[in-house]
């Protein structure tokens, strides 16, 4: 489709002319798209992340697909898992967003004995434990002290100017150490394909152009909110207070301290991508108290060497020549 033919063939008419690229889209002008979609301006030097409010998630999985679309990630060959609507099951090198579904419904009452209400929850459904179907869109947490990054031996995993944790694909040598370091099972080495580690980039490329990350942008119900972490935390606090006033046992997972009733992520210094949950973390397949593996490294190395030396000395003692 050549430029000339395009102009000649489809004479421009009101509203028909294509827009320039969205990045310097004249209608938006100096405004970034993120200001429209997330109400936030993206600038280097600030901490950005996601606040995922699971009470707003409708389990549509738009985030999963939007992520794959933007990052051009291939689909995986999956088999049906007919337990609930989650056939994704876990993160992988090509799945960076994952929506979990947790069916929590009471056992069937005996119908003959009571033809009375069940599944009826008054005005606040999730206040009642009788029937609920929890949905939660999980993602890389972009931890304040990221175990994957601390584990990375090549400096491939870096912290960007947006405080996100990013794997430099031109550096990664696929050692796989980040994979075992991650306390959330996020990062994975694509052993079958390029042999490198992959995970959510917080849409680093988009942030550079003032675009909201694809998943958060696509979320129809704003369950995934993108923004400056401190502001998101403030929003989250208000939200938790509001839900608690309504009788919902909401708490934050990943605030790094405040409102972390059922968990403690302080070892990681909090998570740039944090969540509002209404059940125990394990229900969402999250560790209650994620640890920071590198806490053990220095100590371990020193202990190891000292022990080795001690062993050596001990053994060396036995090596003395037979009595002369």
């Amino acid at each position, binding site marked *: 489709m050549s430029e000339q033919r395009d102009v000649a063939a489809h004479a421009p008419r009101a509203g028909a002319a294509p827009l320039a690229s969205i990045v310097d889209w004249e209608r938006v002008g100096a405004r970034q798209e993120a200001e429209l979609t997330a109400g936030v301006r993206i600038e280097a030097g600030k901490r950005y992340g996601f606040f995922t409010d699971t009470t707003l998630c409708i389990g549509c999985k738009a985030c999963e697909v939007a992520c794959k679309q933007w990052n051009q990630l291939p689909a995986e060959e999956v088999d049906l898992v007919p337990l609930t609507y989650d056939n994704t099951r876990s993160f992988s090198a090509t799945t960076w967003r994952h929506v979990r579904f947790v069916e929590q419904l009471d056992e069937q009452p005996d119908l003959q004995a009571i033809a009375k209400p069940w599944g009826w929850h008054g005005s606040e459904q999730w206040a009642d434990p009788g029937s609920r179907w929890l949905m939660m869109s999980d993602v890389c947490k972009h931890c304040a002290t990221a175990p994957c990054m601390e584990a990375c031996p090549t400096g491939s995993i870096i912290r960007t100017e947006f405080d996100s944790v990013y794997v430099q694909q031109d550096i990664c040598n*696929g050692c796989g150490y980040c994979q*075992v370091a991650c306390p959330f099972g996020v990062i994975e080495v694509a052993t079958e394909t390029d042999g490198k580690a992959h995970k959510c980039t917080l849409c680093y490329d988009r942030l550079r152009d003032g675009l909201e990350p694809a998943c958060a942008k696509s979320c129809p119900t704003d369950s995934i909110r993108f923004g400056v972490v401190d502001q998101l935390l403030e929003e989250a606090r208000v939200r938790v207070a509001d839900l608690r006033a309504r009788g919902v046992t909401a708490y934050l997972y990943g605030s790094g301290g405040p409102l972390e009733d059922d968990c403690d992520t302080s070892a990681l210094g909090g998570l740039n991508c944090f969540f509002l949950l209404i059940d125990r973390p394990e229900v969402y397949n999250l560790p209650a108290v*994620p640890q920071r593996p590198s806490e053990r490294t220095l100590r371990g190395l020193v202990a190891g*060497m000292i022990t080795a030396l001690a062993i050596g000395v001990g*053994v060396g003692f036995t090596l003395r020549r037979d009595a002369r």
Partner: protein
Amino acid sequence: MKGLEAGARVSPAHAASYMGVPPIKAPSWKPGMIPGYFWLGGIAAGAWLVVSLDDLAGERDEELLRAGRWVAAGALGGGTVLLITDLGRPERFLNMLRVARPRSAMNAGAWGLTAFGGAVGLALLVQVLRDLGGAGRGANAAALDRGIQLLGLAPGLFVGSYTGVLLSSTSVPAWALRSGWLGPLFAAASTSSGIGTLLVIGELRPWRSSSTARRLARAQAAALAIELALSHVSERPAARLPSRSTEPRDERALRALAHGSAAVGLLCALRGGRDARLAAGLLAVAGGLALRFLVTRSGRRSAGTPEDTWEHAR
């Protein structure tokens, strides 16, 4: 391919985990490479340690030194090949030395390995020159040797022990819970299998000095005793993990092999005699390998057991 796996058919409403899906990832490492590297690196470090201490502490035993250097060089070379092969992008192995990251056990290991490799390489060079008749003999040579051995001592100690720390600095419960112990355990195992290798060499091609074998056997006994003790102690923190109670048969066999080899090896080393020493050496070397397999394998299974993570991360 993801799919319906055995054990996934539990009602999610009552499941203690999320459809049995592990919350963390098991290692991506190719089978055998990493334990093999741990083992070979350990032999290199152990052999180096023993001959260095021997050289530093007492009379020169050039034959032992020479054997130790060759063992260290060979094992280290082999281990490095395994390590590089295991990378997703082997051609980028040098990226490990791109930066210094003290919080990364892998990065520290790479630097340590480099330093150790340098010392071993230098030692080997000197050794080869000397064997070819160059590089002289005498007091100066002895000082040179000692210097080189001393140079490699710290990195050697490091290479022998860091691999355990490498494992325990992860989110894999079976490793993480044993932090503080895996390093020492691997150090002990490195020492014992290093000595074991020298013992075996000595029995296959007997030392000129008869005391060498005896001394090595004593050292072997000591090292194995320490290894056994550490092995026992280090397992305690992880014993409460649910994955331990569901240990499959092959893993139990591996455990028996690792511990049994060390114990029998210890007895043989104490007994003395040529065959016994040979057996002790072989058992120590085999036990070292079994131990590395056991630890990596139990970690892999632990990573695949959601309840382990709940136990660890709470």
